[in-house]
C-alpha cells in the first residue's frame, strides 16, 4: 500500500472518530431536563460518552504513534 494512502486513511479514521464524539456530546449536552429521558438513561448515556472519549484518547495515542512510525519509514510502499 502506498505510504501516503495509508497515512491519509489513518488520519481519516481519527477524524471520523472525533466527529462522532463531537456529535454525541452535542446531543447529550442538549438533552433538556425532564423531557422524556430518565435520570438513569441520562447517566447511562453520559457513561457511554465518557467510555467513548477514553477509547478515543487511547486510539489517538496508538494511531499517532503509528503515523509517526510510518512517516519515519523510508519506503514508499508499505
Amino acid at each position, binding site marked *: 500500500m502506498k505510504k501516503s494512502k495509508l497515512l491519509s486513511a489513518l488520519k481519516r479514521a481519527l477524524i471520523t472518530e472525533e466527529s462522532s464524539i463531537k456529535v454525541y456530546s*452535542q446531543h447529550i449536552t442538549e438533552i433538556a431536563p425532564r423531557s*422524556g429521558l430518565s435520570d438513569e438513561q441520562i447517566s447511562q448515556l453520559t457513561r457511554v460518552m465518557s467510555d*467513548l472519549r477514553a477509547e478515543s484518547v487511547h486510539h489517538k495515542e496508538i494511531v499517532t504513534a503509528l503515523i509517526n512510525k510510518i512517516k519515519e519509514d523510508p519506503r514508499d510502499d508499505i
Partner: protein
Amino acid sequence: MSMRRKIRWLQLLPLVAINVALIYFVSRTVLLFLQDYHWYEYVVAVLLLLAESFLLLHGCGYMLSIIRATGQANPIDLDQKPKSFPPLAVVVASYKEPLNVLEETLACFNALSYPNKYLYLLDDTRYADHPDDEALQRYKKQVEELCECMEVNLFRHKWHDAKAGLINDFLLHQAVNPREGSVLKIFQRAPPLGGEKYIAIFDADQNPMPGFAEPIIAHMEMEYRLAFIQTPQYYTNISTNTVAHAAGLQQAIFYEFICEGKGAHDAMMCCGTNVVFRNDALLDIGGFEEHSVTEDFATSLRLHLNEWSSRYFPRVCAFGLGPEDLSGYFKQQYRWALGSVGVFKEIAHNFSEYARYLPVTHWVEYFLAGTYYFIGFVYLIMGACPILYLLLGVPSYFAKPEIYFLTFIPYFFLTMITFYVTLGRRNYRIRDILLGQILTVNSAPVYVRAVIDALLNRKKPFEVTPKGQSNSIPLSRLKLYLFCGALNLAAMIWGLLQMYFSPERAQPILVNVLWATYHFVIINFIFYFNNPIKVKKS
C-alpha cells in the same frame, strides 16, 4: 409505594377516565336529542357531537394504550445480547440533504459498535433532471468525496417514487437483481453475496448511538416472523428552538404510551427512521409501498396482512433534529397527514376485504392511526361553536349549564389528569406537554388541507423537512390565524356585553366566553412559535 402498586394505580386511573368519559358521552347524546331546535342548530350540534366523539374515541384509545403499556407481562428486554452478528446494512436515505448534516450521521454510522455492519448513503437527489445546474453537479461530487472520506458506500438509482423507490432499488441491487440505472460505489466494503440479512434505516438527521444495533438484532434473531423493530425518535434541538421543542414533545406523546401499547400486542407501525427491518420480510411483500408519501405506515399494514409481526423498542438510541421553524414543521405535518389519510383509505379497503386476516386490536390501532389527522376538522368545529353562539346566537350544546358542569368537568379534568400524570411519570413537564398540544391545535388548517387533498386524491410534490434554517413565516401568510384570533376576540367582547345586558343568560354565555378566550390564547401562540430561536440559558 412499591413498583407493583404504582403500576396498578397507573392502570386504574385511565380505566376510571374511560368510564367517566363514557358517562359524559351518553348523557351528552341523550340531552341533545331531548331538546327542541331549528334545523341549522341541529346541524351545528351534531357536528359538535361528532367532533367530541372523535376526541373521546382517540382519548379512549390512548387510555387503553397506557393500560396495555403498563400491564405488559413480558416487556421487551432492552439489554438483550446477540448470540451472532448477521450482516446488517445501515442506510441513510438522502434527498439534497446538507453535507454537514450527512457528515454527522455518517460519522455516527462509523461509530456503531456492531461488528458486521455495511454502511450506505442512499442518494436520491435528482441530478439527471437538472444536468445544467452547476451547484447541483458540484453537490453530487461533494457527496462522493464525503462518502470516500467517511468510508461509506454510495448508492444511486434512476429516480422514482421518492424514499420507497430508493430503498426498494437498493434492496433489489443487494439481492443481485439491480434495476436499470442503479449504481453502487464501494468506499467501505463490498456487500455480502445476496445482500445483508437486516437493514437499519435512518433519516439524514438521525444519529444512532454506538450500541444501537446489538439488542435489536438480538430480538430479530430470536423471532423468525418479526419483520421490524421500531425505536423512538428523540429531538435534541429542543432547548434552543420553540418549534422543535413543541414538535419534540408531540413526538414524545406518540413514542411513549401509544407506541408501547401498540408494541404490546404486535401492532407497532413503522415510522420511517430509526427502524431495523428483516430484508426477507420486505422482499416477501415486494418492498416498500411506493405510492404513498408515508410509505412506512403503508408498508406496516402490508407486512401485518402477510402475517409478519413487529415490535417497539422503547429506549432512545438515536438522536435527531426536529423541524426548526413553522414552515418546515407544517410541511412535515402536511406530508404525514396526507400520507396517513391516504393509508386510511387503504385500511378501509383492506378491512372490507381481509377483515379476518388481522385481529380486531390491529384493525382498531390502524383505524385510530389512520384517522388521527381528521383532528383538524375537530378543532375547526370546536373553535367555531362558541363564536357561532356568541356572535350569531346559534347554540350547539343543548344542556343546562349545571348538567354541563356536572358531567363535563369530571370528564375533562380526569382525562387531563390521567394524561399529565402518566406523562409526568415519564419525565415530562406539564408546561412542555401543553406546548406540544398547542402546536397541534395550531396545525389544524394544515391537517384540514391535507385531509381534503388526500380524500380528493390530489397529488403534491414530495417536500423534505428543511434542516439548519429557522425562518419566521411572514405575517401575510398567517392571515387565517389573525382572522380567527380577531373573531374570538370579538366574540369574547360581544359575549361580555350580552352578559351585562342579559344577566338571565349569563351562565351559557359565560361558558362560551371562556371557550372563546381559551381558543384566542391558543391561536396567539402561533406568534410564539413563529419566532423559533430561543435564547439558550447559560
